[in-house]
């Protein structure tokens, strides 16, 4: 996170650029969706009455508030200061992908394999790929995690397996 002297530390920006706060719009809409979803889901649980609130009471109120706030935020964002949604796609895919691969392989292929694969995939997130370096790091991580977690902490996962 690089820092220009006067830039990111302005506690008050001098002017607001006209445009839409896309982040606010997107986030607000997500909140509305989540709120509505949970609101519908909460109706399955009894609300009870005020003196004896049921399991549905709290989530119902919360989900309604979330949805309403989400809508308000989206509307404000229509006029809000201009922001964009910067997405670092390559690192994002690499890292989330790495975790997904870990999820898929840990129970099927063992700890060492899972660590090796996820380290390798996440190193692909770096702009100039250093393949040899990544391989070395991946192997080192696999070895260390087996040492620390299987021998040290005794977690019940085999280092390598074939389990489909």
């Amino acid at each position, binding site marked *: 996170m690089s820092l220009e002297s006067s830039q990111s530390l302005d506690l008050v920006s001098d002017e607001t650029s006209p445009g839409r706060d896309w982040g606010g719009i997107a986030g607000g809409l997500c909140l509305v969706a989540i709120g509505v979803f949970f609101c519908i889901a909460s109706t399955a649980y009894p609300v009870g009455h005020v003196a004896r609130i049921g399991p549905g009471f709290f989530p119902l109120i919360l989900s309604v508030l979330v949805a309403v706030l989400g809508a308000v935020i989206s509307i404000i964002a229509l006029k809000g200061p201009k922001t964009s949604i910067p997405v670092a796609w390559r690192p994002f895919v690499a890292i989330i992908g790495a975790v997904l691969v870990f999820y898929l392989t840990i129970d099927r292929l063992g700890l060492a394999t899972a660590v090796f694969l996820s380290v390798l995939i996440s190193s692909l997130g770096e702009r100039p790929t250093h393949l040899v370096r990544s391989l070395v790091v*991946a192997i080192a991580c696999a070895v260390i995690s087996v040492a620390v977690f299987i021998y040290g902490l005794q977690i019940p996962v085999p280092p390598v397996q074939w389990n489909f």
Partner: protein
Amino acid sequence: MDIYDSLALGLTTAMQPMNLWLCFIGVLLGTFVGVLPGIGAIATISMLLPTTFYLEPVGAVVMLAGVYYGSEYGGSIASILLHLPGSASSAVTCLDGYPMAKQGRAGVALFMTAAASFVGGLAGIFVLILFAPTLARVAFSFQSPEYFALMLFGLLAAASVSSGSPLKAVAMVLLGLLFGCIGTEVNSGMNRFTFGQLELYDGIGLVAVAMGLFGLPEVIQTLGEGTDQQPRFKVTLRSMVPKWADIRQSIGATFRGTGIGVALGVLPGTGGTIATYISYAAEKRLAKDPSRFGNGAIEGVVSPEASNNAAAQTAFVPTLALGVPGSASMAIILGALMLHGIQPGPALITNHPDIFWGLIMSFLLGNIMLLVLNIPLIGMWVRMLHIPYGVLAPIVVAFVCVGAYSADNSSFDVLLLVVFGVVGYAARQFDFPVPPLLLGFILGPLLEENLRRSLLLARGDFGMLFLRPISGTLLVLASITIAYVVFTSFRQMTQDGAVPRPAAEGS
């Protein structure tokens, strides 16, 4: 038990070999992640959560706390040498620290920040010793309505001061509270929002949420920025010796920074980061020659560093005395205690005096260790900065994955990592603050429980909550906070309202 007995108990607890060792590991790790940009204290604390399962409660919290305040020491190193903050609360140190380095005074800057951090930390510990027990005694008369009001106010206050739009922060708090509802509801035994998934019966695992929300997005973002600068300034032990003029200028600044940090650290929501901005601004305003700031004014380096360390220590006052965390990191540390079956709150000091006082004395020992680590061993940290981020990032990812998995031996937790990693990254890019989400998530079940009990007590009469003196005051404060949030959002919408520029990721 009088104060000397307590301190003695604390010292004997803290000096136990295992606790000493864990303290050392904590502060070492803390400095390490503080030095390195791209990994923060909170991500590290969440990654260490699974390892705390195997430890005694005292040791676990000693280590996690060590990471927390240790990172406040290391953060300034990257700020001074690279113009890149190692942690959010060291961002301000870049402003005058880097110019000092360019003037060949990097060593002095590093030395003075370490010294200032030590003074700040010490003062914070002192305040902690003075105030926490008293606060706990006051809180003994707290019942459900008071707790409800306190937590509500704490959440709202944290939201209103977090970076960016307060409205977005409040929304995140609410979302966190909502996520906290997932799982078995204690009173009725009903499974809420589990949709048949067995693994969700106990709620969403804290480890997966914390790591997903804080660890992964930070790595993604830093990888995306592709900064791989190397420090160009030589730092030798001799170059660290300050001139008398430096010391004279720094004394006042250090004490002022300490004062600000101590005060702000106690309040919920405000943490080291905000304290540093305020300290810097105060120094600039009080200086005889404000134009020096931005060009290597040592006060601008020393004051923020003192304040963030002071704030890091006093943040434990509400956490330990009341059981109400003021920031996401504190919430996770509390979570660690809860995982060990220890109920935080005013009773902690009386029921587990060894934990409370042992922790405080470990802070003292930790700060001393940090002083040693940060001055003679500074060369080691500078060398760390040479590690390319492309190597660090995958290691962090591997650690996060294995950590999440090992918490419950469940690959489902890894899937949750994916979900919350996406949520956390999306929130960041949409400019919604993430710490309030975690705060809400951790406090959610407690908030609901206290609400239920209060309403039961009052037989449905909401007004009763306002009539009781303490809860009434807190609720009024909470309402004022809500009004403030609404007001600022309204202003933003109807005119060219100034919007605070988003700062670095909060504590």
